C-alpha cells in the first residue's frame, strides 16, 4: 500500500526477538503459576499466547475462529495475559506485552455486539494500550507503531470514536454519543487525548495518527452518529445546511427515552439527533478543515487529506472546490480504495450539477473498478434514465440486472467514515512481521 509503505520508521528501535533458550524455564514458571496465583489463569489462553509468541499466527487464529473462539476468551483474557507478562524477567516483559497486546487485537476484532450494544472488543484494546504504556521502554519500537495503527483501525471499524479522541473533544462526544453508550463511559476514564493521544505521544511525527484524530472529529459531525441510522442515500443526507440555531438548540435539548417505543418519541429522538449533528457541524468542521489543510502538505497522507477536504466541500455543495481537491486525489494516488471513493464523490457532484453524461462516464468507470457495486450501478441507471435517450432504458436495465445478483453491498460513505479500517489486514500483517519469531 503506497501510504503505509512510505511511512518513516527512522528513530524506531527494532524489537528484540524472543530468546529461545529461555523458553523452557519460562514454560515451567507458566505451568507452575496456576498453583501460585489466584485466580487461575486460563491454560487455553496461555497456550495461545505462547503459540503467538513463537510465530504460530495461523494456528492461533484458527483456534480463535473455532467453536470455542473469541467470545469465551474475552472475559478472562486480560487477567491471564497479565499473569503471562509478569511471569518473566524485565527484558522479555516488553516483548510479551507486545505479543499479548497483538493477540488482544485478534481476539477483539471479530467480537460481535450483543443486541445493538457497543463493540465488546473495546475493553480489550483499552487494556492492551494500558499494558503498552505501563511497560514501554523510552524508545519506541516498530511493532509498537504497527500496533497503534492496527488498534486505531480496529476501533474505527467498530465505531470506537469516543475512545480514539478521549475527552479532548468533549463537545464532539456530547453531541455524537448517547449518554447510555458504554464506549463513552470507557472513554471518560481515558486521559486527555484518548487512544490516538497515546499513539501520538509515542510517535509525534506520525501523520496517520494526526489524520485519525481529525477523522474522529469529522465523524462526530456525520449522519452516522444518529442513534437511528438508516442507510438510504447517505450522501444526500450527510449534506451540511446552514443551521437555524434557535430551533436546533431547542430540538437538541429535547428529553426522550433512549429506546422509545412510540413513533412520536422515536421522531423526537431523531429530531434531537439531527439537531445535535447540525450543531456539531457548525462547531467542529471549520477546525477540521484547517487541520486537514495542514496535513495535505505531507506526502504520506496528502491523498487522504485531499479526499476529506473534497468531501467536506461536497457536503457544503461547494462543487467546484470539491472537484479541485478530488482531482488532486486522482493525480496523487493509485490506491483502488481512495480512487473508488473519489469516483463516488465525483459522480455525486456531476449528478448534482445536472451533468448526466459526466456522471454516466464516472459511474461506468467506477463499475469497471468495482464490478457489481450497487452504489455505482443505481446512480448510473438513474442518470441514464434521466437523459431521455431512446436507448437509455434498455441500457439502464442491463446495468441493474447485472447488479441484482451481486453481493457487493458496500456503502462507500460507511467505508469513508471508517478511517483506516480497510487497512487493518495490512497493519496486522506488518505487526506480526515486526514481532518476529
Amino acid at each position, binding site marked *: 500500500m503506497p501510504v503505509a509503505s512510505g511511512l518513516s520508521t527512522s528513530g524506531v528501535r527494532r524489537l528484540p526477538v524472543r530468546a529461545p533458550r529461555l523458553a523452557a524455564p519460562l514454560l515451567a514458571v507458566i505451568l507452575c503459576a496456576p498453583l501460585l496465583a489466584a485466580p487461575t489463569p486460563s491454560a487455553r489462553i496461555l497456550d495461545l499466547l505462547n503459540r503467538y509468541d513463537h510465530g504460530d499466527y495461523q494456528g492461533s487464529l484458527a483456534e480463535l475462529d473455532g467453536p470455542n473462539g473469541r467470545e469465551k476468551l474475552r472475559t478472562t483474557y486480560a487477567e491471564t495475559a497479565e499473569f503471562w507478562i509478569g511471569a518473566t524477567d524485565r527484558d522479555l516483559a516488553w516483548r510479551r506485552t507486545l505479543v499479548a497486546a497483538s493477540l488482544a487485537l485478534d481476539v477483539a476484532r471479530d467480537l460481535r455486539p450483543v443486541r445493538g450494544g457497543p463493540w465488546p472488543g473495546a475493553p480489550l484494546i483499552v487494556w492492551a494500550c494500558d499494558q503498552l504504556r505501563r511497560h514501554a521502554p523510552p524508545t519506541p519500537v516498530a511493532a509498537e507503531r504497527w500496533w497503534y495503527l492496527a488498534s486505531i483501525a480496529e476501533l474505527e471499524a467498530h465505531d470506537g470514536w469516543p475512545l480514539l479522541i478521549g475527552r479532548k473533544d468533549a463537545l464532539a462526544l456530547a453531541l455524537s454519543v448517547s449518554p447510555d453508550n458504554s464506549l463513552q463511559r470507557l472513554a471518560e476514564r481515558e486521559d486527555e487525548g484518548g487512544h490516538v493521544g497515546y499513539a501520538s505521544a509515542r510517535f509525534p511525527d506520525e501523520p496517520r495518527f494526526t489524520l485519525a484524530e481529525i477523522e474522529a472529529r469529522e465523524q462526530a459531525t456525520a449522519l452516522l452518529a444518529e442513534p437511528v441510522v*438508516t*442507510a*438510504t*442515500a447517505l*450522501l*444526500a*443526507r450527510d449534506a451540511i*445546511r446552514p*443551521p*437555524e440555531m434557535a*430551533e*436546533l438548540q431547542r*430540538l437538541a435539548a429535547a428529553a426522550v427515552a433512549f429506546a422509545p417505543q412510540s*413513533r*412520536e418519541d422515536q*421522531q423526537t429522538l*431523531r*429530531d434531537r439527533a*439531527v*439537531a445535535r*449533528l*447540525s450543531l456539531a457541524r457548525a462547531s467542529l468542521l471549520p477546525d477540521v478543515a484547517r487541520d486537514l489543510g495542514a496535513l495535505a502538505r505531507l506526502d504520506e497522507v496528502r491523498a487522504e487529506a485531499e479526499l476529506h477536504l473534497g468531501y467536506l466541500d461536497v457536503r457544503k455543495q461547494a462543487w467546484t472546490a470539491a472537484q479541485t481537491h478530488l482531482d488532486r486525489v486522482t493525480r496523487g494516488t493509485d490506491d483502488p480504495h481512495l480512487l473508488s471513493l473519489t469516483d463516488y464523490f465525483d459522480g455525486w457532484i456531476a449528478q448534482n450539477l445536472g451533468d448526466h453524461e459526466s456522471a454516466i462516464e464516472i459511474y461506468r468507470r467506477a463499475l469497471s473498478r468495482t464490478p457489481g457495486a*450497487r*452504489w455505482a450501478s*443505481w*446512480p448510473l*441507471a*438513474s442518470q441514464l*434514465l*434521466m*437523459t*431521455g*435517450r*431512446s436507448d437509455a*432504458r*434498455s441500457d*439502464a*436495465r442491463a446495468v*441493474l*440486472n447485472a447488479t*441484482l445478483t451481486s453481493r457487493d*453491498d458496500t*456503502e462507500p460513505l460507511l467505508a469513508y467514515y471508517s478511517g483506516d479500517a480497510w487497512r487493518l489486514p495490512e497493519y496486522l500483517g506488518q505487526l506480526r512481521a515486526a514481532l518476529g519469531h
Partner: protein
Amino acid sequence: MGCGLRQSSELIWVLIASALTLVLSDPVAGRAWRIEAARQQAVFHAGVNAVRVDVSVSDGHIPVPGLTSADFSLSDNGVDQSVEAAAIETVPIDVTLLVDTSASTDGVIARFKTAVQRCADLLRPIDRVRLVTVSNRVDEVFPMQRPDRHLPIATMQAGGGTAVNDAMIYAFAWDPGPDRRHLIVAFTDGEDNESTSPPDTVVAVASRVDAVMHVVLADAYAPLQRAPLAAGQTAELASRSAIVDAAKRSGGDVHHVTDAVAAFKEVFDDFRQSYTLYYTPRGVPVPGWHDILVAVRTPNAAHLIVRARKGYAGG
C-alpha cells in the same frame, strides 16, 4: 426524447393495432374506437418528434369516456399545442407489480401472494405482468410474461429493510417498446431505509420516463402527521413524500387502501380506460426539459380529475 414516437409509421401501426385489439376484445368500445380512430386518422399526420402522453380523466373514481382530441388542451413549456389524436387506449399493457417484502410486511406476505395472483387474473391475455419485490435488495421474481402463465410466487418471503427507491428506479427502467404501455403498481409502506437512490432521484426519473406509477400505501403505515423538521426530514418520511410526488409526476396517484386487489383493479381499470394524446411540439426547442400541462375543456371540466405526467426530456 423520453417518450416520443419518432416515426409516423410507428404511430399509425399503434393506432391500427389498438383498433384491432379493441374490436376483437370489446365490441361496444370497439364501435366508439372505430368512429374516433377513423375521424382522427383522417386528419392526423404525426411528425418525427410526435410525443405521446397518457392521460387519465375521471369523475371521482369513475373514468370519463367519449372525449376526443378537441376536448383536450395541452401546453408544452407554456406553449399551447395542437392535440393531433386522442385514443381510448387499448394497446397492450405491461404491468410491473412492485411488492414491498421488508420485515414490516411479515404479517401480510401470504395475502400479498394471493393478491399478486388475483391481480394477474384481472389482466387481459394481450397484457403482460412481472413481479419485482423489494426488501433490502431488489429482485425480479419473474420477468414480464403473459398473465395466464404460472406465476412463481411461492418463494416470496418477508424480511430485511426497504430499498423501495431503488426498486422504483428498477421498475422505471423497463422498456415496453413502442407498441405497449407500462403501468407500475407499487404496494409498500413507503418508508425507505436501504436504498442507494435518494428520494429526489426517484421523482426525477418518474418525470422523465413514460411509465405511469400508482402507489398503494397500506393503511397500517399511514403517514405520520408532523411539520417538517427545520434541519431536514428523516430519511423514511422524505422517502414517502418523494414516492407520492413521483407517482403524481408520472401521471399516477397514491391510494390508501387495505385491499390490494381492489386497489389494483381500480388502478388498472383507470389506466386501461385512459386516453393517449399525440402531438408534435411546435414553437418550443426540442432539447431540454419540457413541462407538459394537460387540461380538459368540456363544460363539466371543473369536476373532473385529470392526471398526466408532468413533462419529458427532449432529445
